[in-house]
């Protein structure tokens, strides 16, 4: 079997400004980010021969290709399941590069997530598909938003392990502290303290306003090529040591409520097992993370999924300040989805690359290996980046 370990690397990253009202099309945003990723790598746009995005992205690959002047495409695809696609798109690109289907694949996500289609407003539809039948079991009772679905799992976890509101607040505040120095971030120069956190309005108990991610306009893109080729390009390669998608038994989109145990994330445990096996690394080798954080509770639960602490111990891990810059595991050093922007997780992958390059606005002392995960509560994935 062909191993994906060290076959490919991220050679370029590009992001637009993140805002609450971009005033332009998603095609415009995505085009800017893709061109920026190619320029960052020092590669002509015409050398792009593969494009991958999310099924939820409004910009099709050929629209993007015509817009930016990409070359002939020999690989294009889209990945389903919302933010679960953030690693999935990179996975597609790595497989395409490793098997020679394309040389330079760009993955992108461009959205008007605040001024246009707001994911936080929930789902609706008229055509009968198995997916819509699935959502309808919840919509009919008024359970329409991502916050409501995640709250059900978060509450059960809190009840079992004694996680407190302050613990959730610690995650939100830790990430806001990172955002304070990141000019791209919504939370740039906007401090958050525990008193403000606890006083913020309850949205879907136990989740308060600051447990929710941003709604943002903007785009991100990453250029993936072979590790060998990446060495000849402009930036230090962020080599992919291990990458996988993961969906497990009883998986639903956001509402995997019918498993025996609700206090864990089996799909993240599967992703963990696979990326550690592929890379030959263990949790002890991971210096920093960008754990998907549409909601603060998701960070808590993933600390256990990826083996950074034992089951039920994430609260202690967080209370000890381990997610902060001088802690054991600096996490979402750009502010994450909670405090930088919500570009469906692809901005977290971009930060993973910056950490390997050493260019984060909050660069930890050590970042030899960085783990990034995609959407929580959905079919998802994880990637481990390493230095060349």
């Amino acid at each position: 079997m062909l191993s994906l370990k060290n076959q490919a690397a991220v050679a370029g990253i590009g992001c637009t400004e993140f805002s609450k009202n971009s005033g332009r099309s998603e095609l415009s945003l995505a085009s800017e980010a893709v061109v920026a990723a190619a320029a960052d790598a020092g590669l002509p746009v015409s050398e792009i021969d593969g494009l991958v995005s999310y099924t939820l992205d409004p910009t099709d690959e050929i629209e993007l290709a015509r817009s930016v002047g990409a070359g002939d495409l020999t690989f294009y695809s889209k990945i389903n399941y919302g933010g679960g696609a953030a690693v999935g798109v990179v996975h597609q690109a790595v497989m395409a590069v490793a098997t020679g289907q394309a040389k330079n694949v760009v993955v992108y996500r461009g959205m008007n997530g605040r001024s246009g289609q707001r994911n936080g407003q929930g789902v609706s539809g008229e055509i009968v598909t198995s997916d819509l039948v699935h959502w309808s079991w919840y919509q009919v009772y008024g359970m329409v938003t991502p916050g409501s679905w995640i709250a059900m799992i978060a509450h059960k976890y809190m009840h079992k392990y004694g996680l407190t509101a302050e613990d959730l607040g610690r995650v939100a505040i830790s990430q806001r502290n990172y955002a304070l120095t990141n000019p791209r971030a919504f939370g740039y120069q906007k401090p958050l303290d525990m008193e403000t956190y606890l006083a913020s309005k309850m949205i879907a108990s136990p989740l308060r306003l600051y447990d929710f991610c941003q709604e943002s306009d903007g785009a991100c893109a990453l250029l993936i090529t072979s590790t060998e080729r990446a060495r000849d390009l402009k930036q230090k390669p962020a080599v992919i040591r291990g990458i996988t998608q993961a969906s497990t038994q009883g998986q639903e989109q956001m509402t995997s409520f019918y498993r025996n145990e609700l206090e864990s994330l089996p799909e993240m445990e599967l992703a963990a097992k696979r990326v550690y096996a592929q890379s030959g690394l263990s949790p002890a080798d991971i210096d920093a993370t960008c754990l998907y954080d549409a909601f603060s509770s998701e960070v808590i639960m993933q600390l256990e999924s990826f083996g950074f602490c034992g089951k039920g111990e994430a609260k202690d891990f967080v209370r000890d300040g381990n997610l902060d810059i001088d802690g054991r595991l600096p996490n979402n050093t750009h502010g994450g989805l909670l405090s930088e922007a919500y570009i469906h997780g692809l901005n977290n992958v971009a930060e993973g690359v910056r950490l390997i390059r050493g260019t984060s606005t909050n660069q930890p002392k050590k970042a030899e290996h960085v783990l990034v995960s995609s959407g929580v509560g959905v079919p998802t994935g994880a990637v481990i980046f390493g230095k060349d």
Partner: protein
Amino acid sequence: MSNAVSDTVPSRIKPVLGHDNKWWWDQAAAGQLVIQRCTSCQQLRHPPRPMCNHCQSMDWDYIQASGKGIICSYTVLHHPKFPGYDYPLVIILVDLEEGTRFTSQLIDCDPDAVDFGMAVEMVMQKDADGFQLPVFKLASN
């Protein structure tokens, strides 16, 4: 133009109805909370699906649930407020005594008084527009 009731009173989002779930909502409309059962291996399953994921049989019937269960988890929804629902809205996961789990609403209960492990029982609620769905209230004993 839709019917007069929905023009004046906002109503809840109705389920899309297809082969795999319409039969279940037909039972709710008839006042019954039912659980799908594989007639090959007798496994109960919810939400309904066309195939048994234990034995791959596509033969099934259903049983009537007692309506008794225990709160497995819950959330109280405050924002955003959708037309057709009353807030704060208490949503519960109920472990039905038959063994399947069901997502529903808890009615007639102070949101601050809800807790894990509470016993609940089903009530068939009829909306102003005539739509029926199973909801729960705290068990009377």
